[in-house]
């Protein structure tokens, strides 16, 4: 089959690409659009390293075809910061040392942003359940949760 022409919006900007029908959105981001912040950990929707936000929903980009992006609005890790100013989540991840190797970090940040967009005042338990689909093999999660809770407080102006 001929390549599929897709027009979409990524991180606030109009985007278009050609993709094979079986290419996942993760393949498209990394291989066609050079947005390599989203990572492939498992390729089966278990690890969350490829998390993106599509029309306000957190999804694994490895579990979505590129062709499905047509007409959607997508946020990737590259769209989280405001120019050179880090998003509060990114800043708090640095302050709390909530990353070590960093491979899971883009996915955790995107998932955390989706959490705070939906619920600016999550309890620690809600944050832990929300992030259960983001696997980190380095930090033991406590620092990640501390950073998310701290960023949430700061964004609430506390």
């Amino acid at each position, binding site marked *: *089959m001929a390549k599929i022409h897709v027009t979409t919006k990524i991180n606030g900007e109009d985007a278009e690409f050609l993709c094979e*029908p079986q290419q*996942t959105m993760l393949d498209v981001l990394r291989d066609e659009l050079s947005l390599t912040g989203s990572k492939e950990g498992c*390729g*089966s929707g278990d690890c969350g390293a490829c998390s993106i936000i599509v029309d306000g*929903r957190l999804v694994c980009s490895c*579990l979505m075809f590129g062709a499905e992006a047509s007409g959607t609005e997508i946020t990737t890790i590259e769209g989280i910061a405001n120019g050179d100013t880090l998003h509060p989540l990114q800043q708090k991840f640095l302050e709390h040392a909530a990353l070590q190797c960093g491979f899971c970090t883009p996915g955790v940040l995107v998932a955390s942003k989706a959490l705070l967009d939906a619920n600016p005042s999550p309890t620690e338990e809600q944050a832990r*359940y929300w992030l*259960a*689909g983001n696997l980190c093999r380095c930090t033991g999660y406590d620092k990640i949760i501390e950073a998310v809770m701290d960023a949430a407080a700061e964004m609430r102006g506390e």
Partner: protein
Amino acid sequence: MYAPNFAAPQSIDDAVRMLGADGAKPLSGGTDLIVQMRSGRNRPDHIVDLKKVPGLIGIKAEGAGFRVGAATSGAQLGEDKALVAAYPGIVEGAELIGSTQVQGRASLAGNLCNASPAADSVPAMAACGVKAVVVGPNGEREVAVQDIPVSPGKTSLTKGEFVKEFVLPALPANSGDAYLRFIPRTEMDIAVVGAGVQIQLAGDGTIAKASVWLGAVAPTIVEVDASCLIGTKLDDAAMAKLDAAAQAVCNPIDDKRGTIEYRTKVAGVMARRTAEIAFKRAGAR
């Protein structure tokens, strides 16, 4: 190289026509299909994305019941307050499928038609008498959800057919539903046993009707003979009989999540605990 076709039809008729092609597979959330394609287990020639077909996504109240589009995500189900209030068990089953990310895409029809015996959304739907509206080359038919999966990975749908929506019946008075599953972890795992229950009370608070279904203990979900609960208030004797009846219908496999003996014993426990929740919910209405 493997190169399927991809199409996103915008009408039922187009979807039926496209799914009539050899090697065509419907796509809703893709959380099973894409994983199976990557592993090589499933190699469709045509991927037919149904999410652009009107009615395939969304929840409509209908009388005292609901119509739920086949490809509606678990996240959307959980955000619909009226649906959660009426059918908390069905929603809690759907919301146990995968992570937040998977919840953003995974659908009731995908969970049902993937035909895993451990599908979390199916036992409570069966207990509540949910029907799947199936469309295909020969028109439309309503099928009880439990009649769609016939064995692991196989459904009763014929060529060109797909599930369009689900009909959740008008909520019976003084009724409550519930779903519980047992997994070795706290999140993100496949059921060792799942139990879906709907209970309806008589005016005096005793059980007038009970429907109990188990997942992950046989090649398909199985119904438990819950006649022992009728006329009771879930006293110890009724619970013991329910436990035995649940164990009696089990025909599970041995795998890393549990042995046959373990799954069978846990099935009794899960049936009791789920019945207890459904009974409390029915009493609170």
